[in-house]
């Protein structure tokens, strides 16, 4: 007799096929970084070589965008961490007028297409005669990173029992001591996970950035230019691997930090 809990074969095949469809294309990038073919995307690669890693390392035009991307991601993450946590602390327990509108406002920068956020900021800079700078990039990135930190923090706040802060107060701690010794240690891993995801999102962001960067180039913008007008294709492959790893590793860490909880690391990107 067929067991009730066994999936039909066709469903299993379709599900596994779907997962493969999601993963195989990314794997291909790794293969192409070793190809000896420079001018086309020929498959299978005619030969394999390690030389592109050295070539990429010595390319002077890759380093400044990399530094800029790292800096923007780090500063935006810090700002999102502060603003997102404050927001989560306020929203987790209190009921107040405009609460629903505020939660919509937090999600909006990521719910609306990036081109709208980008174009909005671009319009504002133009109307106020604000010149493009690193600051204008950070302004955009921090705005859409807030929701990531917020989602992680608010889930943890909800799981925390209110009685531990009351116990802390009963034992004579003031609000700041309660925050330092009770809340922060309990929030820590959720905040770290949120920060990791925010960093990954900012490091990789290209749509909003093209509107707020002016002539500057972050690593994703550098990559985009190479995609539109390829120069040395295998070098772009190497950079793609670097970008992939820089976003992939924080995501994995975030997953392990929030595993088992009710909060899901990626909920609501």
């Amino acid at each position, binding site marked *: 007799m067929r067991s009730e809990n066994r*999936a*039909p074969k066709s*469903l*299993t095949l*379709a*599900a596994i*096929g*779907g*997962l493969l*469809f*999601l*993963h195989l*294309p*990314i794997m*291909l*990038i790794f293969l192409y970084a070793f190809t000896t073919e420079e001018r086309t*995307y*020929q*498959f*299978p690669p005619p030969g394999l070589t390690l030389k592109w890693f050295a070539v990429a390392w010595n390319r002077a035009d890759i380093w400044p965008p990399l530094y800029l991307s790292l800096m923007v991601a780090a500063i935006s993450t810090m700002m999102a961490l502060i*603003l*997102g946590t*404050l927001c989560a602390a*306020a929203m987790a327990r209190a009921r107040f007028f405009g609460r629903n509108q*505020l939660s919509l406002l*937090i999600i*909006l920068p990521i719910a*609306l*297409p*990036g*081109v709208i*956020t980008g*174009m*909005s*900021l671009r*319009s*504002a800079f133009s109307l106020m005669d604000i010149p493009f700078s690193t600051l204008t990039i950070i*302004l955009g990135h921090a*705005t859409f990173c*807030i929701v990531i930190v917020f989602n992680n923090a608010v889930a943890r706040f909800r799981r925390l029992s209110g009685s531990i802060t009351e116990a802390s107060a009963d034992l*004579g701690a*003031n*609000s*700041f001591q309660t925050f330092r010794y009770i809340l922060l240690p309990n929030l820590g891993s959720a905040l770290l996970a949120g920060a990791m*995801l925010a960093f990954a999102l900012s490091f*990789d962001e*290209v*749509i909003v950035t*093209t*509107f707020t960067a002016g002539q500057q180039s972050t690593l*994703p913008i550098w990559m985009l230019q190479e*995609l539109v007008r390829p120069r040395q294709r295998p070098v772009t492959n190497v950079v*793609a691997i670097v*970008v*992939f790893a820089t*976003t*992939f590793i924080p*995501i994995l860490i975030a*997953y392990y930090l929030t595993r088992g909880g009710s909060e899901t690391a990626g909920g609501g*990107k």
Partner: protein
Amino acid sequence: MKSALLPERGAGDRMTAIFWRRPRVLLALLITPPLLWLGVVYIGSLAALLLQSFYSIDEFSGLVVHEFTLKTYIELLRPANFDIIRRTLLMSASVTLASAVLAFPIAYYAARYATGRWKAVFYLGVMLPLWSSYLVKVYAWKLILAKEGIITWVADGLGLGFLLDAALALPGVGGNSLSTSFLGTFIVFVYVWLPYMILPMQAALERVPKSMLEASADLGASSAQTFRTVILPLAMPGVVAGSIFTFSLTMGDYIIPQIIGTSARFIGLAVYQLQGTAGNLPLAAAFAVVPIIIMLIYLSLAKRAGAFDAL
């Protein structure tokens, strides 16, 4: 205070007392910085976008005329511009449909049959592609769809090259190679946004009680009937929730059609080119208002379908 159990130890304690007596003060202190940020930076920018869209551009000097006018919006209705909007909506709708079909088996298997270790595999298996670098994913497809790439190689190897040629010969969606055809743009859109459809769908499916499926079987329904009359209606809010993402993200994207596809423009690409090389900020802003309005309509319809409970 005489009645206090412990003597006050400084500013921290004094503020704690204020917070205790007036919780609203603490709330205000917490909420003000993020509210200011989002209010000024984000809402301010959206207002700037709206304002900009009511300005126009002087045809001779190429400078923005800071005077209220509807001229820019009327320009949106010109055939060339209206075509862009129609093409974008058509693409968003087809991408959403295809994602829903592809997402279903994955979501259904993960919700109903995957347990323990497999559950984690499915969760990470959807989450990692969702979060990993967008540009790298698009780039990977540039490699795959290229004329000399892996798809052509596999098709030739299996003797199916004629099928690929037939698909590329289709009028309207075909092209020289997959990476320069509408078909290619469509495939990449579906790939990139598919995880956004799977997650809410899975969440909705997980809430379908098993007893209902058993009841349906007990009452003599075949699995196809159960699927059509029980599972699908109950999963619908999840599908609608997922479609919000796939639709909105496709509508606003301008990187994918720029890298893979014909040179035909979509809303996102039009906005990008108009604000950049063309320097026509008002028209770019007016174009950007279109997806906002469409999404507002879409969201209110989705709300009626109960999609927000599935998020």
